[in-house]
């Protein structure tokens, strides 16, 4: 088999369609008789609904209905199911599709208006008379965990819904014997996802068949179907869910949302197709985000600065509900010990309810948080012991010869975590070399002549990718000789239509132009999990490989019969099966497909089943661990505090690259997310839980002008844990980026500046630190 496409930087097959306006996003779906929905949302962070009177709104032009939860009682009721149940959560902590009685964050949906147009529906919102009694507000996690704090849910005994713990080794003994112990506290903030396309749902009841069709801008369409079917008391087979073209997800679109259920319920209640397109204001209020974590940590090291152990606790702001179970804080915990070979660690995370929009994973989930604190601890050791930062890392990293390395951590099923492959020190050396750390002091001196402070930063990470259990794929050759790949794995722009086609094209020896990928439609493929956790290349990619190889074997078997040749004498090339060395003796795949498609009265060859097609499910029982290092230079204007990243270098190992162009895009975009978290993005709320930065004028999403060029170097250590040797690449850019930028700022401010333990860092904050340093 030739490998013409795997590993090649082929241009994305979906781009001509998407870039010329021929995509089909949820808002492009227009159905006869379709009504437009808007949501009446809570304007208070915590309150009790006393009354709701829609009568004035109902008499306004174009208004067809105003629904509260009670109006859906014949279709469904009660709180939403949890996406990821956890043994520590005795009962789901979720909201109803529309709030009943109590609202717990600004933006929680209370009622919905259906109208002939979105504008008319919005006009009617102000006419709904809503009386809400204000209740005490928990506006941040530290307040929520304090004695005597108000309750984020008035019926709950405590705002702490769970305490997660991860430990390994005898931490007390390791700390007692260590040469040095250092303590730090950290305040970490990450913002939202801000996908270019906001969320959107269209639900259409089929009056004759009773089926319900749902189009949703989701990373998890099959999860939406499963939970909606349960909620409605229907069979999954009666619900069709499609994720059409989706304009970015970055984590929050993996959640199953109250609006998805409410739109479906409204469509069933009114008998019309119903469309809801989230606007950007709603996105700021009601799409899940990440937010604050407060860490108190202690690190132990030996006399040479080798990191030995970490212990401490974290307070995690989970927001008003736990729709995604405890996955977000759990990913922070599961990210320890990072690239470090620790003799022991002992960490706990208190998961706290607040009256703010729920948190769920955003690109990297809790991993950037864990990477930030671990990398800052490594920098603490370097600072206190006056060692080069790289040296602390080289002495502390898991070494290549230790692979596979059992970390002491546990998988979700309790089995031990073992890193599969790689050379962590090599990645660090690569970025140190490529950014020319040796020449840095010269550059720093030059910048000083311009009145600027230059700083150099490093950070590293290990990332668990390819989360199980599976994504499946089917591969089918049509009688025209075209190859159709179908999978449940939804794309939000990652280029699945190209990468999965590359794998299939190689296995079947066809031109890439002959392969079409269809995805995320429950009528096209029966099962799917979720496009999360950098898992699709590993899971769906491997499944395509498995399915395509089955099809290849089948084609060769049939060709052997047609050509009267031995199977091992045949090869597959240029859309044909041919005899090795005798290219004229061949049979096109289209002919084989036609034979296996059957003709009336004509038997198909013995020993093969009809249809030149196969399905593959790669079961990812073990994680594939990607890793990497990053280095950057920042230039600070000490008068304004302005911080520009002037250089950025990434070394990344995601195993075998399917398409370097796409991987580079993933890494580059990931780094941008991290830079946003380090310097710009801050979702602020006041003490009443009111969002203060709910527009792009106030929420500083960085733009292209704020971004440096990002230089990317790949190390390719194939993962032994899947048939294509891939590791995920979607989050590795983000995970160490904040730590890298902050390390560079620290370096620029010099040894007299306070040790930086928080992010994002504002220019005002930097000016304050410079002032403190000068005093």
């Amino acid at each position, binding site marked *: 088999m030739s490998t013409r496409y795997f590993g090649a930087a082929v241009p994305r097959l979906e781009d001509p369609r998407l870039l010329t306006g021929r995509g089909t996003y949820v808002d492009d779906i227009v159905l006869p008789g379709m009504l437009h929905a808007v949501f009446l949302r809570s304007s208070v962070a915590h309150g009790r609904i006393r009354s709701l009177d829609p009568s004035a709104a109902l008499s306004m032009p174009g208004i067809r209905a105003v629904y509260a939860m009670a109006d859906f009682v014949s279709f469904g009721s009660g709180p939403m199911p949890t996406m990821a149940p956890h043994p520590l959560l005795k009962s789901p902590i979720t909201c109803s599709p529309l709030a009943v009685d109590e609202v717990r964050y600004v933006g929680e949906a209370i009622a919905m208006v259906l109208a002939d147009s979105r504008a008319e529906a919005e*006009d009617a919102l102000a006419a709904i008379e809503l009386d809400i009694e204000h209740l005490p507000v928990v506006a941040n996690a530290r307040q929520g965990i304090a004695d005597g704090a108000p309750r984020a849910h008035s019926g709950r005994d405590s705002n702490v819904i769970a305490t997660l713990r991860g430990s390994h080794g005898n931490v007390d003994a390791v700390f007692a014997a260590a040469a040095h112990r250092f303590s730090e506290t950290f305040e970490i903030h990450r913002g939202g996802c801000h996908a270019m396309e906001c969320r959107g749902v269209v639900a259409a009841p089929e009056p004759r068949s009773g089926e319900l069709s749902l189009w949703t801008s989701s990373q998890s369409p099959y999860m939406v179907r499963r939970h909606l079917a349960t909620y409605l008391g229907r069979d999954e087979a009666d619900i069709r869910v499609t994720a059409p073209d989706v304009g970015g997800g970055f984590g929050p679109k993996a959640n199953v949302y109250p609006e998805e259920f409410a739109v479906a319920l409204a469509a069933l209640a009114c008998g019309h197709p119903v469309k809801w397109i989230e*606007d950007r*204001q709603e996105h700021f209020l009601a799409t899940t985000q990440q937010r604050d974590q407060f860490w108190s940590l202690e690190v132990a090291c030996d006399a040479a600065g080798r990191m030995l152990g970490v212990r401490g606790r974290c307070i995690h702001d989970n927001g008003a509900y736990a729709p995604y179970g405890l996955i977000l804080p759990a990913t922070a915990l599961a990210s320890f010990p990072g690239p470090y070979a620790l003799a022991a660690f002992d960490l706990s995370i208190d998961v706290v309810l607040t009256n703010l929009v729920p948190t769920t994973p955003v690109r990297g989930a809790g991993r950037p948080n864990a990477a930030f604190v671990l990398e800052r601890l490594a920098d603490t050791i370097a600072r206190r012991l006056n060692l080069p930062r790289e040296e602390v890392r080289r002495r502390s990293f898991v070494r290549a010869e230790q692979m596979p390395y059992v970390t002491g951590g546990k998988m979700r099923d309790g089995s031990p975590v073992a890193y599969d492959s790689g050379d962590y020190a090599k990645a660090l050396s690569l970025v140190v070399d490529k950014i020319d750390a040796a020449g840095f002091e010269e550059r720093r001196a030059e910048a000083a002549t311009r009145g600027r402070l230059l700083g150099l930063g490093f950070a590293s990470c290990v990332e668990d990718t390819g989360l199980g259990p599976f994504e499946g794929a089917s591969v089918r050759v049509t009688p025209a000789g075209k190859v159709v790949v179908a999978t449940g794995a939804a794309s939000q722009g990652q280029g699945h239509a190209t990468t999965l086609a590359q794998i299939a094209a190689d296995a079947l020896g066809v031109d890439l132009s002959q392969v079409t990928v269809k995805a995320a439609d429950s009528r096209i493929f029966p099962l799917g999990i979720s496009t999360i956790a950098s898992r699709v290349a590993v899971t769906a990619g491997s499944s395509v490989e498995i399915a395509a190889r089955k099809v290849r074997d089948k084609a060769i078997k049939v060709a052997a019969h047609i050509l009267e040749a031995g199977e091992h004498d045949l090869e597959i090339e240029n859309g044909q099966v041919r005899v090795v060395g005798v290219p004229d003796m061949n049979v096109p795949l289209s002919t084989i497909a036609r034979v296996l498609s059957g003709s009336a009265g004509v038997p198909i060859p013995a020993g093969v089943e009809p249809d030149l097609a196969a399905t593959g499910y790669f079961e990812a029982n073990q994680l594939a661990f990607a890793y990497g290092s990053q280095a950057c230079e920042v230039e600070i204007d000490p008068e*304004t505090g302005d911080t520009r990243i002037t250089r950025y270098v990434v070394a990344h190992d995601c195993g075998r690259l399917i398409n370097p162009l796409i991987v580079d895009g993933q890494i580059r975009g990931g780094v941008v997310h991290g830079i946003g978290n380090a310097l710009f993005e801050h979702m602020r709320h006041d003490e009443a839980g009111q969002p203060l930065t709910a527009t792009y*004028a106030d929420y500083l999403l960085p733009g292209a*002008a704020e971004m440096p060029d990002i230089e990317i170097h790949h190390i390719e250590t194939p993962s032994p844990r899947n048939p294509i040797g891939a590791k995920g690449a979607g989050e590795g850019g983000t995970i160490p980026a904040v730590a890298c930028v902050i390390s560079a700022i620290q370096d620029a401010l010099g040894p007299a500046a306070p040790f930086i333990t928080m992010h994002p860092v504002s*220019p*005002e904050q930097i*000016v304050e630190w410079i002032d403190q340093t000068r005093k």
Partner: protein
Amino acid sequence: MKAPPFTYHDPRSRDDLIGLLAELENAKLLAGGQSLVPMLNFRVVAPDHLIDINRIPDLAGIRLSANAVVLGAMTRQWDLQASADLAATAPIIREALAHVGHFQTRSRGTIGGSCCHLDPAAELPALCALFDAEFDVAGPNGARIVKVGDWFKGYLESALEEREYLQSIRLRRWPAGHGYGFSEYARRRGDFAIAGAGALLEFAEDARIRRAAIVVFGVEPGPVRLVEVEQILVGQTFSEAVLAEAAAQASALDAMADVHVSAAYRRHLAGVVTRRALTEAARPARQAV
């Protein structure tokens, strides 16, 4: 985020516009729409009538005379930036416009719209303050000229009356060879400045300052001329002492605080940008032809 209902009007002449202004209640004028349209979509404003003045001829244009530059109210920010005449006679305008939004918004946004909306951090009203502008307004009760000192009434509030519209803005020309400097600090490219400053300097043959104008914006609700510093500068040669005095005065302004920055940091920045703008203005190579 859809606008509330309104009736749309698009007059084709100044007379038609004045007729609508006389007749309609609760009307808003639509110029480039870069502030008004988002405000409509956020339902911050809910006019009963929207009068689109984009189709009235002669409201846009750049005219130079011996003493003045007259800018039609509907002149697009992009046209101001692109004008070679303007760049030659008042080069600070082109420099400042690079900071006004993004090229997409500049291709629609107008100088009149910016001067009537009056965001505290807007560059164009600040330039008007710097150039001692006169605002030519008209309405059913006739036309009048408003001097720049009377134009800024408060936060987002100009002297334009409810039934008036802005026709043009007249800037005083500075002589050939004047120095200019512009500096602002914003978090992202195209953001409203946290603080900004513009400076113009005219030098006599003996290198003493003959005339000075300094404006600080984004700090108080409207642009502020540092008149005292300007007076101190006249007759002096440029010096560190002069710069320090200017920065000190800018740092003493009554700065606003917001969700992003404290008043103290904004005052500090006001000093920094004022010093930078003046330093630029004093550089011989930076003097206009």
